[in-house]
């Protein structure tokens, strides 16, 4: 039985670390409003590996304390206005990263390892501002060869949107395997889907190949069009007009509040 999105939001407690996917990988925009209404704040967002509309809205709603990300933007619609304002105001703890470092941190958690090493990064200000990363000399080199160690990222909850689930709790993620990586690394995983099918996705090798097993899935909600205004691969395209409309509205706190209020009405 699919769960109600509002009851799914109850899993989120103040102070939790949430992992959210990149805009093209299946953002559960449908969960944004229930999350804001639920109101659990002091959230630590981990963008896998970049953030967009959902991150901007959660920041605008005042729920976010820190963001670990490789970027936050609205893509073609420009900068993320509430994020940018919060940065200017010093209202966010920023953990600027680079895409593969976020993947690396999740991979460490997936493997149950305290860290993984990663090439690159040496000499960047990204590294200079990360006191939670370490640099060691590669123990397999003859000396020198500095290499960065990225500690495991263990989110409390991963939240994403996918094309389908079955009634046994398995979720089809196709080739968007970062969604599986998020789930492996996270204690809980909340998923919204376009549809729920009766047959097991694991019963057939073709669907099984793109399936995240129920073992990792805490709760599933039915939300057709649930990535909107983002698109969902193989399902529907991004509504760039709506993203642009948001980008214009959210330039000010008032405009953001009005936009969110009008959205709430549409959804009610």
């Amino acid at each position, binding site marked *: 039985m699919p769960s109600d999105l509002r009851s799914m939001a109850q899993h989120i407690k103040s102070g939790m670390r949430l992992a959210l996917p990149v805009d*093209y990988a299946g953002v559960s925009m449908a969960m944004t409003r229930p999350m804001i209404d639920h109101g659990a704040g002091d959230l630590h967002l981990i963008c896998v590996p970049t953030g967009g509309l959902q991150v901007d809205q959660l920041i605008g709603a005042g729920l976010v304390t820190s963001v670990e990300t490789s970027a*936050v933007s609205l893509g073609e619609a420009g900068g993320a206005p509430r994020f940018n304002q919060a940065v200017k105001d*010093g209202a966010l703890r920023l953990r600027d990263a680079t895409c593969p470092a976020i993947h690396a941190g999740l991979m460490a958690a997936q493997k149950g390892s305290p860290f993984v090493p990663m*090439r690159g990064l040496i000499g960047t200000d990204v590294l200079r*501002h990360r006191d939670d990363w370490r640099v060691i000399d590669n123990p397999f080199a003859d000396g020198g060869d*500095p290499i960065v160690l990225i500690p495991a990222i263990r989110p409390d909850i991963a939240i994403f949107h996918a094309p389908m689930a079955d009634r046994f709790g398995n979720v089809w993620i196709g080739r968007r395997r970062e969604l599986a990586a998020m789930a492996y690394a996270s204690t809980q995983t909340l998923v919204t889907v376009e549809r729920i099918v009766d047959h097991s996705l694991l019963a057939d090798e073709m669907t099984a190949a793109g399936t995240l097993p129920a073992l990792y899935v805490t709760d599933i909600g039915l939300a057709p069009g649930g990535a909107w205004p983002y698109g969902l691969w193989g399902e529907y395209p991004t509504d760039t007009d709506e993203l642009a409309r948001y980008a214009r509205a959210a330039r000010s706190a008032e405009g953001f509040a009005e936009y969110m209020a009008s959205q709430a009405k549409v959804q009610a």
Partner: protein
Amino acid sequence: MTPALPREILICTIARLLEGVRTVAVGAASPMPAAASMLRRALDEGARQVRLSILGSVEHNFFTNGSTELFDCAGQGRLDAFFLGGGQIDGQANVNLVGVGDYPQSRVRWPGSFGSAYLYFTVPRVILFREEHTPRVLVEKVDFISAPGISPPGVYRPGGPVALLTSKALFSFDRERPGFTLESLHPGHDLAELHAATGFAFAHTDDPPVTPGPDTATLSLLRGRVLDELEETYPAFATDWRRDLAAAQPVT
């Protein structure tokens, strides 16, 4: 045939920089690098297979392991070329994608470093591409190093910048000196203008050449097959380009 438009010269210049690549990736919302890669693929057909991945595209995406695969590919040495822009680029080819002013409370905040802090180190042929050529973008020293142009000896660095292309000129990058060398000025631009528009010093000859335009065959390929291919992923850019072409049509 209508002479090459400025954007066509840029695309053909990038395609030239991609000579010999097997695998190239371009970021989302990068129509010119995408067009150049498609042109390269078309030019090399029969001789060499050029693979192109456009991030975030469903159609032009040969990856099946999530968004980590691009970086894995680079780490494996399978990715030959990549493009980086930058809110600021300095004379040492340092790139800033984060913001202006004191970090973290940046006065102007850009999206962030994306994969630059890794790909700049691992992809052999990184092409810096930024159309805006002003002292605001091309600065003496970036405010934040998302990715450094060079690394000290002993740092693992098979990759790095090879060229910087703007709306005004093409530079090569010399890792030894280190610094940029002006290779050519695009038609209609001169050295004095370039010095005024560039916040860093660069090497140049007294009389730098003009960036060559494409030959007729290349231009036909570009306006035919490549423009058609591009339209699927970048419809707005393609429409705009076709409009420019129609406007530039010589009166007959």
